[in-house]
């Protein structure tokens, strides 16, 4: 059953909806950057971004009345956004493994990246 958003919550829904995607992108950006540069402190910022996403998703969930089976959408967003950058990063590293060893010399990060897999 659908429970439409209440008038007073319009702004909250629009804003938290935008924040879900923005924070999701920021999280994946910082996550990838931290891995790439081997800077653990960036990872802290990445998870801070995820924290914002977490709050945004819960806010959206309560303002848009995502109860009942709609609650699964909230869970899916929380877990999906958390894991997606991990999976995609692993894919990035693994798909780039095919480069010939001679090539890796002029690619500054690939050795480091390979050793990390």
């Amino acid at each position: 059953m659908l429970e439409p958003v209440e008038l007073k919550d319009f702004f909250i829904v629009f804003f938290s909806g935008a924040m879900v995607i923005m924070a999701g992108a920021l999280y994946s950006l910082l996550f990838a950057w931290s891995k790439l540069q081997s800077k653990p402190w960036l990872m802290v910022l990445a998870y801070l971004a995820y924290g914002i996403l977490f709050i945004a998703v819960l806010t959206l969930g309560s303002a848009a009345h995502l109860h009942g089976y709609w609650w699964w959408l909230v869970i899916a967003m929380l877990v999906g956004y958390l894991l997606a950058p991990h999976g995609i990063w692993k894919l990035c590293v693994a798909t780039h493994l095919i480069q010939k060893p001679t090539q890796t010399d002029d690619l500054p990060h690939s050795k480091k990246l390979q050793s990390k897999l």
Partner: protein
Amino acid sequence: MKLNHLNGGQQLAVKYYTVAIILFVAQIIFGLLSGMQYLVPDLLLGVLDFNVTRTIHINAMIVWMLYGFMGSVYWLLEEESKTEIVGLKLGNIGFWLLTTAVTIVVLVFLLIQSGPGDDFTRWFINEGREYIEAPRWADIGIVICMLIFFYNAAATFMKGTWSGISGVLVLDLVALAGIYIAGMFYTPNISIDQYWWWWVIHLWVEATWEVLVGCLMAWGLMKTLKVDRKIVTTWLYIEVALMFGSGILGLGHHYFWIGTPEYWLTIGGFFSALEPIPLVAMVVHAVYDAGARQMKGNNNPALAWLIAHAFGNFFGAGVWGFMHTLPQINLYTHGTQWSASHGHLAFFGAYATIIIAMIYIAVPYIRGQEGIGSNLPDGGWKWKWSLGLLNLGVVGMTIALLISGYEQSFIERAVGGSTWYGYFAAQIHPWFVQGMEWRMIFGLVTAVGLVLLIWDLLTIGKQKQA
């Protein structure tokens, strides 16, 4: 202009690009007129009413983007297949056929505009269904031209070599032509009408076009940044899986309110929430690629427009889409300026930008040069300013329309309950009117950007030769 040094496919591409730009100009001119009619309601009343200007505004956009895609595919066809194009003559016939059809359709829209409620009108004047207003004879013409295009691509790859990119591309073209047929019939039942109508609109714009752009991006990345083909191909497959995986059933977010059963509310809501995932994948992968190789482009304008594409797609499709996609809120935003706001940024960000990038990739070759150096005699102010003004203009219009749409969802939809009175109460509200004024101002900014873009495309690299 002499084009003998280009291969056959590229010569065709230049023609398609030229018409694409002309239609881009038409889109902007009629967009400005439509925008002005919001502010001055009797402007051209009874001469070129809003339904005429707006129809040409959106149809010119769809068609110029199709021309841009076809041009881009023809541009890379011979290089990718490593052989000469199979049907150069046929390609030329297809081009003139399509261009003649488009010209006649536009003239009929402008001069005849509407007709009585019979089958003749739908076949020869106006079908009256948003985005696919073109009369039925033109639909058939478009399908024939798409088939010629498909044959040229498939047969050329068949004669030369296939690759992962060309495989995805050709299959995508089959889907592109096939889905268009879903919109080519008449039914008195508006629910069934709109059910199939969305197959054309959504499955083009949010599925097959996206994949086509994925192919162009893959090819563009190999060209401009020398990324390894195997990696690019693997990632194209990943993107296809993610885009079709979320996009096909994402169709559900158009089936909330057209009479379709309630389960579409759930399907549409869930799959819309998945649609940003391909965008997240792109963010991570872009950072990886940027770190894993030196960014050494020999075509700065093209690279800049590719970056604009990444951002535009993310904000237009991702952020602006998700903000109002869940049915709990879409109940209020459906069919308001929200849709216009989302549409402006998404079409520009996802498609206009990449076509402009592809044209910039082609321009130096058309002039017989290797690339566009960073040491342009005038400092490249024209491409930089046109990039800035076009993006500023579209983003400005998007935000202006967002404010109008926000007010409209409140006053008309939530409080006014979408009655005629509620509708007009929202239309005369200061927030709405000011939003429309700012949209007009940023529309003019966009137009100036377009003029500069054309000037730049016509002149960039010329001074060096002189």
